[in-house]
């Protein structure tokens, strides 16, 4: 997909190489600094890493095969549930729990995918919405799995008790996911997804097994969401079904679209932005002590729900004036960092559109 961006301009000058190298170092330093600054920023950074995984997961459905999911909180929750359950009830080690979380997300996604193969477009959105909420109200409330109302604990291993170390694990998982995602879009599965998104008949005429690849997309998305859920359970050190509500699913869709469905860099940026909105910004408001400006109730509410309000506004603005999302601005920068020339208006990708594209 973005392969043309990867072709390195052989006429790169020494300053050009240095500038690009500097940009990469700055990016890496920023990612590390966020986690190592102090325990609070590490907590925000962990949330951001988990959101990035969810964003990449949703991007497979929304951006690559052009379907819709309003139930990703259910996939994420399934991963979180099984990670917490296995770690607490059976004492399995952290790494195994994460793998099982991914498998759980993948299995639930396949079950949704089997239905998805029969229904299309708008109806799929409805199916995922209903399945997501049903998972929350039924599976996530089964007392023997979830430890009743108090929630199932998910204790981190001693080595990862500190937020900064746990953050490094999250970063490693994100890097792994980014690598796989890059391979996906650069190999035949990614090409098949794009063909399916464009027109299923064309995909079939190219010899692509449409049903099989759609299922594959659901499995991959489910695995990523499940692993993200596992990390989430361990980061908050418990599973609580109430955390996986429909609002979360809406937030995930919004951050993917605001970031730019179909664009890896855009989705990563959108996910980080939304995570920052939900954590850092809320605490920033707290620090500023809005109680001096507003009545106490209102400022408390603003802390809790202000980010969602901002998120919804961001979405509506994105759809109205920036239809390809943050990708529209970020893709040229990424192309430059990967060794290409800087093209502000990125014409080569102008026609490639995610779910936010116009017909």
């Amino acid at each position, binding site marked *: 997909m973005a392969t043309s961006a990867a072709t390195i301009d052989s006429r790169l000058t020494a300053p050009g190489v240095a500038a690009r190298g500097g940009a990469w170092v700055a990016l890496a330093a920023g990612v590390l600094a966020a986690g190592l600054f102090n325990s609070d920023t590490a907590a925000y950074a962990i949330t951001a890493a988990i959101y990035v995984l969810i964003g990449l997961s949703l991007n497979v459905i929304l951006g690559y095969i052009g379907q819709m999911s309003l139930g990703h909180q259910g996939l994420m929750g399934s991963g979180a549930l099984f990670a917490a359950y296995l770690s607490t009830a059976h004492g399995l080690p952290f790494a195994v729990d994460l793998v099982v979380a991914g498998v759980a997300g993948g299995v639930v996604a396949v079950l949704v995918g089997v239905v998805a193969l*029969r229904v299309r477009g*708008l109806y799929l959105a409805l199916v995922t919405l209903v399945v997501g909420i049903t998972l929350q109200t039924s599976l996530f409330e089964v007392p023997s799995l979830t430890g009743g109302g108090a929630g199932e604990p998910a204790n981190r291993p001693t080595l990862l008790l500190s937020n900064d170390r746990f953050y490094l694990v999250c970063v490693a998982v994100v890097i792994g996911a980014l690598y796989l995602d890059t391979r996906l879009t650069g190999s035949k599965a990614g090409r098949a997804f794009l063909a399916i998104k464009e027109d299923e008949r064309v995909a079939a005429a190219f010899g692509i097994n449409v049903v099989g690849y759609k299922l594959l997309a659901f499995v991959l998305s489910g695995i990523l969401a499940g692993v993200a859920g596992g990390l989430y359970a361990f980061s908050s050190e418990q599973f609580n079904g109430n955390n996986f509500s429909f609002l979360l699913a809406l937030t995930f869709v919004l951050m993917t679209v605001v970031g730019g469905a179909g664009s890896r860099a855009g989705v990563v940026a959108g996910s980080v932005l939304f995570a920052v909105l939900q954590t850092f910004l809320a605490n920033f408001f707290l620090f500023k002590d809005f109680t001096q400006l507003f009545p106490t109730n209102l400022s408390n509410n603003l802390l809790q729900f202000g980010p969602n309000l901002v998120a919804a506004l961001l979405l509506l603005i994105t759809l109205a004036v920036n239809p390809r999302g943050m990708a529209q601005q970020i893709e040229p920068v990424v192309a430059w960092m990967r060794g290409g020339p800087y093209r502000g208006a990125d014409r080569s990708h102008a026609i490639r559109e995610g*779910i936010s594209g116009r017909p």
Partner: protein
Amino acid sequence: MLLASFGGSFGVPLVAGIRDGCIYGMVAIGLVLIYKSNRIFNFAQAEFGSVGAFIALAFIKPLGGFPKLPYAVALILGLVASAGTGLLTERLVIRRLFNASRAVLLVATAGVALFLISAEAVILGIQDLRVFPRVATGTHYAFFGPPGGGDSFTYGWTEIDIVVGLLLLGALGVWFFRTRWGKSILAVSQDATAARAVGINVNRVSALTWGLAGLLGGAAGILYAPYKGAVPPGFMTGIGEFGPLVFGFIAAVIGGMTSLPGAFAGGLAVGIIGDFAEKYMPTSVPGGEQVVLATLLLLVLLVRPSGLLGREA
């Protein structure tokens, strides 16, 4: 009373189901109206109703400096607010995205829903739950409950719900098939280009459709709120449970997504099945009602995608 003759514990879920069904039916009709005119699912449909209910509540209680008004007047103002929310959504979001793909419009309506829920939460908070008072309280009919009382049933409001719901729908039906505007909406929903050719103002009709959808959402909201009692922000969409939005969607799908009477019948079916499932599903299955209805939705979509009652146009 005819309904009373059912008696026993069987009558409770049936009457409750019809009451719920009227509300879900109204949400479903709103969804179908929008689907027919814009070919999208309006995920903000039920939230129009939350807005109306909270505005009505603000005048009834009163809250936040609103003047205290009689119950009926407050309800009417709530309905106006809901219709206004529908109109604003059309004007500020839908019309701007007129040429966008349906997927974009779908995400946009989900964004509107999140915006309304968040705005409610910011203004009202979720810590102290507001109780929406009933117009008539204390009318318990023990004969609806099992012998020996216990499962008694507040009956007065249910009757009002059913009567108001049916009256509203009847009026809507007459209006739809008799007046010029109703016919215009139908014409535009069949073929916008052809409608434009015969001189129908498609923009005005689009606004009217969304306003009407808002009104239907509002009617559902102010009928649903009193017997739900405590109403958190987003109660019509349903945050940690199925709300009228999801019930309405299932109803609309059962009704075939394009048929107004089908949507209402679907609403009744969903209401009755849901209330029976809630009563008779074993409590060892958490969320039994949701499991039954989700299964029903999947079955309908897989086996008879055109709905049980309608025909895809």
